[in-house]
């Protein structure tokens, strides 16, 4: 056994004492904290608060339930919520404040794709774990490589490809299509994905109108008149919130649904509000593998309990942002649990947490999903046809198809807009069998 020299003892002691100041804070943290602080950015004001507030509500409910179970590995969780409505510069300032003044351990940002694109580089700079919980742009992990960010949901590519496959499966004879999308990044990008994929799968389909009413429009009368005159086989719209509600109501009042088949990839979030004004037979998407009457999870205690508690507390059925928030929180809980186990029971560093999030498989309210090695979440896409039933005062989904991610999501290392050009009628033929609605 080597003798301990005075020099070695001095060096060891100095190193031990100096480590906390020399090593980055993110590399430490083996000491169990008194609490885990989450920074959550969401829309608390403006038109997008229709998603942001349900997301915040879900966080309130789930964090309370999590803490009632003892928190994450015995550590209580608390959330600091910020509004992303004032814009990207404000949001970045708020994120920096949360990281540096409030010492948040993890950020959950954001709803807007613009916000996510801005927060990812900031998370790199701050070495702050960041979970993108609701934004949809596929560009984030296609155009950048982010050590400190992951996304716990799918992205715009499967959200648009899945309803297109569904449409071509049930109506392969479609000849003409018109689009009515909001005039901003999501409206334009989602149409670009749809158009490229449609031209690849069935090149003969004619686009008879490309209408992009301004973001926040309150009146679609002129667009509806135009569509009535053009009589397209299909009307595609990725609008959301109040604008989608208005478009649906105005279209129904003017009998446009009788002339065209509507494809509404975000309409799950509007069903309760528009009620049975939305007729039967409309193709409805849910932005992922979730719905309060999810075909394979609706009878599970986990989903039933959440829906009951959510309704009791907020008076509404949960919509997709609530499920996206749940996915982010369940992923975080699972990642801490796995990282702690891998760390021999010691509290993980931020790096260890991020390493664990990549490749993580976790259960959420309606199923199980995975985060890819590039940070992108993989989940099936639930698409169905609206149907009126006596049990609910609004349409439910019937003939539901759960599109697996390998069918509708571009592989890691490829660009979604290029990948959709490789789709064909063979892809349509791989559409899984529909699941009927059951009361």
């Amino acid at each position: 056994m080597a003798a301990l020299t005075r020099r070695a003892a001095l060096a060891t002691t100095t190193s031990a004492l100096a480590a906390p100041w020399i090593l980055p804070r993110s590399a430490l943290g083996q000491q169990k904290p008194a609490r885990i602080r989450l920074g959550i950015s969401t829309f608390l004001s403006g038109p997008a608060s229709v998603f942001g507030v349900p997301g915040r509500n879900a966080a309130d409910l789930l964090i309370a339930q999590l803490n009632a179970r003892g928190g994450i590995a015995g550590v209580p969780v608390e959330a600091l919520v910020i509004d992303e409505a004032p814009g990207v510069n404000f949001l970045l300032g708020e994120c920096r404040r949360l990281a540096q003044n409030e010492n948040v351990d993890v950020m959950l940002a954001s709803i807007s794709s613009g916000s996510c694109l801005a927060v990812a580089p900031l998370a790199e700079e701050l070495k702050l774990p960041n979970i993108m919980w609701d934004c949809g742009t596929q560009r984030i992990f296609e155009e950048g490589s982010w050590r400190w960010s992951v996304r716990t949901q799918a992205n715009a590519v499967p959200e648009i490809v899945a309803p297109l496959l569904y449409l071509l499966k049930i109506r392969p004879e479609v000849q003409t299509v018109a689009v009515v999308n909001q005039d901003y990044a999501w409206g334009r990008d989602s149409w670009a994905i749809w158009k490229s994929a449609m031209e690849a799968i069935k090149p003969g389909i004619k686009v008879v109108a490309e209408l992009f009413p301004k973001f926040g429009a309150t009146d679609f009368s002129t667009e509806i008149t135009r569509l009535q005159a053009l009589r397209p086989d299909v009307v595609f719209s990725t609008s959301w919130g109040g604008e989608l509600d208005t478009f649906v109501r105005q279209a129904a009042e003017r009998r446009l649904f009788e002339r065209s088949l509507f494809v509404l990839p975000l309409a799950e979030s509007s069903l309760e509000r528009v009620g049975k004004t939305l007729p039967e037979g409309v193709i409805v998407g849910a932005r992922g593998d979730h719905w309060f009457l999810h075909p394979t999870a609706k009878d599970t205690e986990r989903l039933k309990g959440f829906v009951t508690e959510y309704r009791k507390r907020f008076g509404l059925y949960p919509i997709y942002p609530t499920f996206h928030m749940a996915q982010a929180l369940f992923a975080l809980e699972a990642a801490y649990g796995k990282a702690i186990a891998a760390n021999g029971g010691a509290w993980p560093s931020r790096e260890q947490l991020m390493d664990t999030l990549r490749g993580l498989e976790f259960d959420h309210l309606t199923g199980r999903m995975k985060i890819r090695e590039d940070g992108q979440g993989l989940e099936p896409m639930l698409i169905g046809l609206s149907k009126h039933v006596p049990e609910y005062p609004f349409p439910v989904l019937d003939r539901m198809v759960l599109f697996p991610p390998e069918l509708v999501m571009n592989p890691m290392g490829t660009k979604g807009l290029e990948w959709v050009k490789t789709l064909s009628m063979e892809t349509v033929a791989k559409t899984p069998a529909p699941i009927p609605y059951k009361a």
Partner: protein
Amino acid sequence: MGLLLLLATLDGLAYAAQLFMVAVGLTLVFGVLKILNVAHGSLFAIGAYLASTLVGLAGAPELSLLALALAAMATGAVMGPLIERGLLARIYEKEHVLQLLVTFALFMILEDVQKLVWGVQPLFEDAPVRLLGQVEVGGIFYTAYQLLLLPGVAAVALVALTWFLRRTLLGRTIVAVTHDREAATAIGIDVRRVHLVTFTIGAGLAALGGALAAPTTSLVPGIGVQMIVLSFAVVATAGLGQIEGAAVTALLIGLARSLAVYFAPELEVVIPYLLMVAVLLVRPAGLFGRTVLQRV
């Protein structure tokens, strides 16, 4: 082509009617009080939200039109005097910048009040639209509400307002104050009262615009912003304080927008502002505005 032009005109008329109802109140208030009221959009929104609530409470569709009128009157009668006496009366003599800031602050406060009272979920009450049914023109279905009622109410509002200002004593005193506040005061006109009445009428018109729009659209946070921006475009293009000008300009913008949707959809969003820029380049005081001489 003829049918398309007819359809575009009908759409333009319905849109112009909504726009006019909001812009006319804004221009009236500016004409008399010389204040550009940013909170006008909030009065539109509150009128709309209250209308939605009252239509829901009315239950019977037959009462829904009455509920719209009641919502507009209640908003104007309560909010108008409250804002004018409580806030604006204190800043008439102040700088325009300060007046803008105060009304903007009020706008922000009222936005939050709407969220507190009505929440953030979109609200929709279309009983009045369903009550009036549909009209078919050339194989295209319109709602009678948008095709007949909205333009009808806008036309009545224009005629009534013009008659009121030109044919009644109170209206003439308002016009007198508009032309020369000092001279009007000197001959004994109670300018304070004129301000109060004018602002209340303006608030009522904004609320009526909101109440009439409520059954056709989803009410969401920020709905007031959308309308106030377009109304400013109408008022600036027409010339500040021009009532008939606001009607003509709303019609121009409405028609230009619907023609854009038919023939150049990519221009739909910018067409009102292109029109405004084109007019202001040629006539800086607006289409119907007069250049004002100022003593320096």
